[in-house]
């Protein structure tokens, strides 16, 4: 069954989109990430214009993180104060990101920026996660605790910068400056790549600020919910590139898949999942690296500038 997408201006198979978003939703529920980093490239691969893919996935990520936020709110695993700081930074980053996105599109280098960012981000983060997961697995094999104990009194220098604030639920006493910077970077990346940024925010909060993982996921979902809501609105107003029909299809598949993924996550070994997620992120990076480094079969490409519509 095909349905015509009014903004993307092409018909698409309903079952295929539901299956795709369901599978991505399953992965996102499983690993606690938004899944936008998988969905956006897949949609572009299906001939959906990149601008429409990025903007529409923002709406989808907003909807699917809503589900997560409600769940974590019920479990009281959400630090609203920390979330507030992340959101303020995220909004600044999103606005900058949308401006940058439109500038690059005008210059004709948007595709390059997106490809380069995917390659560097995913290789670095995937590589770090893989290293961490392997080390944890080896430690478990050797009969030691999986993670090094947090040492009291030892704090990285950035936590001691001015404007220190106490975040009770996260057990954190830290300067707001580095947290806001992290949030700005993630808002920026999110707006440019159409990803929620959960896969950067979660490890960032755990490794840089040593916040308990249980609170991190809920809080990061909250930040993603707010920034992606803002990004959807900005894309709708500045680009008119949000396809509401596609968004609904993606949401239906995504939220249902995420529920099943969330259930599967409870039954299975955490360490091997971290390893799988690392490999998944690395392979996405590799897929984009191939595009960048291998001589193209067709060096030419044709685009219709959005502004000329």
């Amino acid at each position, binding site marked *: 069954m*095909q*349905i*015509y997408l*009014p*903004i993307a*201006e*092409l*018909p698409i198979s309903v079952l295929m989109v539901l299956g795709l978003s369901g599978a991505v939703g399953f992965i996102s529920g499983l690993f606690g990430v938004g899944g936008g980093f998988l969905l956006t490239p897949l949609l572009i691969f299906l*001939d959906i214009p990149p601008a429409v893919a990025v903007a529409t996935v923002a*709406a*989808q990520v*907003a*909807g*699917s*993180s*809503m*589900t997560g936020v*409600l*769940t974590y709110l019920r479990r009281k695993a959400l630090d609203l104060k920390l979330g507030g700081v992340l959101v303020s930074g995220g909004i600044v980053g999103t606005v900058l990101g949308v401006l940058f996105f439109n500038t690059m599109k005008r210059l*004709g*280098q948007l*595709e*390059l920026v997106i490809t380069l960012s995917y390659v560097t981000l995913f290789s670095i983060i995937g590589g770090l996660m893989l290293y961490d997961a392997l080390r944890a697995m080896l430690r478990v094999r050797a009969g030691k605790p999986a993670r090094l104990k947090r040492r009291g009194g030892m704090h990285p220098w950035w936590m001691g910068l001015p404007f220190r604030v106490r975040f009770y639920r996260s057990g954190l006493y830290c300067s707001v400056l580095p947290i806001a910077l992290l949030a700005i970077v993630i808002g920026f990346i999110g707006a440019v790549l159409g990803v929620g940024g959960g896969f950067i925010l979660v490890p960032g909060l755990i490794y840089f600020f040593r916040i308990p993982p249980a609170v991190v996921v809920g809080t990061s979902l909250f930040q993603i919910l707010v920034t992606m*809501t803002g990004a*959807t*609105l*900005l*894309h*709708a*107003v500045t680009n*008119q590139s*949000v396809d*509401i*029909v596609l*968004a*609904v299809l993606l*949401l*239906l598949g995504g*939220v*249902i898949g*995420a*529920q099943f993924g969330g259930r599967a996550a409870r039954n299975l070994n955490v360490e091997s999942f971290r390893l799988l997620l690392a490999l998944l992120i690395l392979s996405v990076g590799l897929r984009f690296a191939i595009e*960048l*480094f*291998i*001589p*193209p079969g*067709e*060096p*030419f*490409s*044709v*685009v*219709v*500038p959005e502004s*000329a*519509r």
Partner: protein
Amino acid sequence: MRWFTAILAAFAVGLAADAVRAETLIAAMSSHQIQITSNYTGSQLTVFGLVERDGRTVARGDPYDIIVTVRGPRRMLLVREKERLGPIWINRTQRRFADNPVFLHVASNRPIAEMMSNETARRDRIGLVNAERPTGGWVDLDPGARRFRESLVRIMQGKGLYDYEERGVTFLSSALFSAPVDIPATAPTGSYTVDIVLYSGGVPLARQQTNFEVIKTGIEQRLASGAYDWAVLYGLATILLALFLGWGASVIFRRD
């Protein structure tokens, strides 16, 4: 005496032109509007035509040839070429084709190369590469322009938006012909022009133009225009819908 010969010459030229214009083309479309609804997956139209000859026309030694050119809505197109920069490949040079049709369909009853010379095809802008050739001879001197135009045609053919059917026109009788035109679902909305040219022995005898349009209707049209005219409202509606579906999922799948 000189003015007399001038008039005589003009008269002779007029007669010759009359003889050339002895054939006229009559054309009709099977439909003048394609409506895009939510289950739209492309459409097909047929161009019908009749070559009409008046009684005085002498029988021609060469058969009639018909070329149908369908041009879609015009947009600015950018053609970019990837080049090597250090270890990576990036878009370096680009050429803009202002006012270029996004859809182009050329159909003939036999291969164009058999009908006319290359020069005629270029002069009369016949064929995919020639159809949008800018007028002015100097353009052909720029080898880059031709390379980019040929790449443009090749890529658009790959997308199914440009298409040449060398036997896409069928003569139903010696004077009546039809040409089906496939409009893929990815073809843009807007107005399309259909040019029909009659050739015989490599000489154009008559031409005719008609048109049709592709429009979004119903909910598709309302959503698309809403996204532009009510951008803020449209964005808010999308967000509300997204949050509602997210909330709904957490309620439905709640375990307790």
